């Protein structure tokens, strides 16, 4: 029968599914969203719990007596500096906060400056040849532990040895902010170069040609034409690299003790406490460490999405 040739053998599936599918989808998605948010929520609410509620059973999902004591505790000023001793419970967040802020800001800024400079050179003059763009990211792939041990030896042994023989003074980079910043700067440079390269590539070179034909010098052109156009890219790159440095743990742990400690290292010190764990203040520290980063990350999320598309998106 001719009708058979026209009608499909099975009914079109879309019509039936239309009423059921979205509900199922949303249910699954909401389920995962709950899994995602739960640890963060738990940490947040623990930070407002009084010590009596920390390990109560069954656990309280919301503090029965919410308090700001934990935050007060970690933000107290400890004038004696006793808080830095490895054996004592460190209450004071200020030292680590300063360490983290200084290290991350300095390392990220210098990496941004150097990396942007090189990215411009690669984009416009193809410095380093065709493969260089991809090779740059190689450094990033090396596991930090492989770098940690060499750097420990380097900072604690070789450099003091070298400066001693050259200048007569033993300068060690171990347990210094400078040492950590230098390392952070080096390992985030590849990212800066990679990201700024994509931003600079988007600025057509003909703009610089046009400026040049109109008599502008190269510095003038960079200042007035190129930099304004990559400014937002620079901000995003800085934030991305800052977040990476802020979260870095292994290298900070291995290269600092006891004077410098970044926030992640501080959090870990709580963890290894032998007597009674202070869950409350720890949760407060965790909140301080992570919430600003999450907020920043949400702000630059559009660029993260774009950055991880790896050229799959059709232009």
């Amino acid at each position, binding site marked *: 029968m001719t009708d058979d040739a026209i009608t499909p053998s*099975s009914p079109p599936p879309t019509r039936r599914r239309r009423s059921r599918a979205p509900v199922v989808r*949303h249910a*699954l*998605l909401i389920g995962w*969203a709950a899994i*995602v948010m739960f*640890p*963060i929520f738990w*940490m947040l609410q*623990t930070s407002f719990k009084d010590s009596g509620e920390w390990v*109560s059973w*069954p656990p309280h999902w919301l503090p029965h007596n919410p308090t700001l004591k934990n935050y007060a505790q970690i933000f107290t000023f400890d004038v004696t500096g006793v808080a830095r001793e490895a054996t004592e419970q460190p209450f004071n967040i200020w030292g680590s906060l300063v360490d983290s802020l200084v290290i991350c800001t300095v390392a990220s800024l210098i990496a941004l400056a*150097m*990396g942007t*400079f*090189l990215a*411009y*050179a690669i984009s*416009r003059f193809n*410095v*380093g040849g065709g493969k260089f763009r*991809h090779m740059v990211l*190689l450094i990033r792939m090396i*596991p930090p*532990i*492989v*770098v940690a*041990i*060499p*750097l420990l*030896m*380097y900072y604690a*042994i*070789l450099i003091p040895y070298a400066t001693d023989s050259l200048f007569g003074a033993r300068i060690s980079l171990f347990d210094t902010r400078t040492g950590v910043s*230098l*390392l952070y*700067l080096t390992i985030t*440079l590849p990212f800066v170069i990679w990201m700024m390269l994509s931003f600079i590539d988007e600025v057509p070179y003909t703009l610089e040609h046009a400026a040049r034909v109109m008599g502008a010098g*190269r*510095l003038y052109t960079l200042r007035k034409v190129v930099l304004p156009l990559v400014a937002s890219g620079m901000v995003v790159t800085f934030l991305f690299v800052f*977040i990476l440095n*802020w979260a870095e743990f*292994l290298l900070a742990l291995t290269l600092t003790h006891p004077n410098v400690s970044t926030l*992640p290292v501080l*959090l870990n010190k709580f963890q*290894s406490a032998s007597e009674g764990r202070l869950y409350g203040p720890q*949760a407060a520290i965790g909140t301080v460490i*992570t919430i600003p*980063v*999450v907020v*920043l*990350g949400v702000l630059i*999320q559009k660029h*993260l*999405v774009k950055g*991880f598309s*790896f*050229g*799959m998106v*059709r232009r």
Partner: protein
Amino acid sequence: MTEAAATARREDEARRSARPRRRLSAWLAQERVFRWIPFILVEGTFVLVIIVPFILTIYISFLRWRANRPFEQATLSGFRNYEQVLTDAGFWAALGRTFYFAGAAVILELVIGFVLAMLVHRVVRFRRIYITVFLIPMMVVPVVAGYNFSMIYLDSGPLNQLLAPFVEPFGINPRIRWLSDPIAAQWAIILADVWQWTSLTFLIFLSGFSALPPQLINAARVMGASRRQIFFWVELPLLKPAIVIAVVIRSMEALKLFDPVVLLTFGGPGTSTQTIAYYLWEQVWQFNKFSFGAAASILLLIIFSVLIFTGIWALTRQSAASERARIQ
């Protein structure tokens, strides 16, 4: 003066007064500056901060040196340290364990990320919100994530509370100490990694789904293909680049697992959750076996280099293939 001579004279004057020659070379000189100074700066930093330490480490790996003796007194001992590392059971166990963790975690992350991306790609409302929420774990500082999970896995933590109605009927004490059991501890770490990094695979797959050309799918529908056929014959092959990228990137990162191990289990109970990074850290910082650690670092570097180059080879082959496909 004749016309020709006058013209010639003018041209000569013009050429002599041409100070523009200096200007042009100034621009060119600037170009030289712009080309090489950043390159030297950056490469120099890499050499100073990465390469030199490595050379030092290679030297140390050939020394026989214990931490209780000063550096200057150490003696050369050939390949002994390398032998020690290669025959050390702990080293290989940790390495094997690392691959196991990474493998399990990455597979879960790929599957969950894929499903999530597929779902989010198809929903219409709240898409932005879902994407924002799903990206959050990636932005949580890993140490904090480790700490959070240690709270959740507490014997008096919410996980046990949720499971209580399921285990109490069997007479089991719901206050289970997850982290005291080797297998459970291992999975605790794997799941912590999955929680955090599924965001990344989700992101990559989402881009992949967004890049699917609707024309191809429409053409298949017009030709009568069912949903399942379209998925397996059209969409999945087109998603291959995304899959390759996700696998390579996540595998590389997962092998470096360290933060959750330190925060959750300290490598325990016993050594059951020691990843290679943790193992190495312990050897150097707890036991001060510097030469051992140096040799192990070099060996690890070699192993990882092989893996990295394999990964890069896979990635470049993939991007070359998708370039070819795009040009057509």
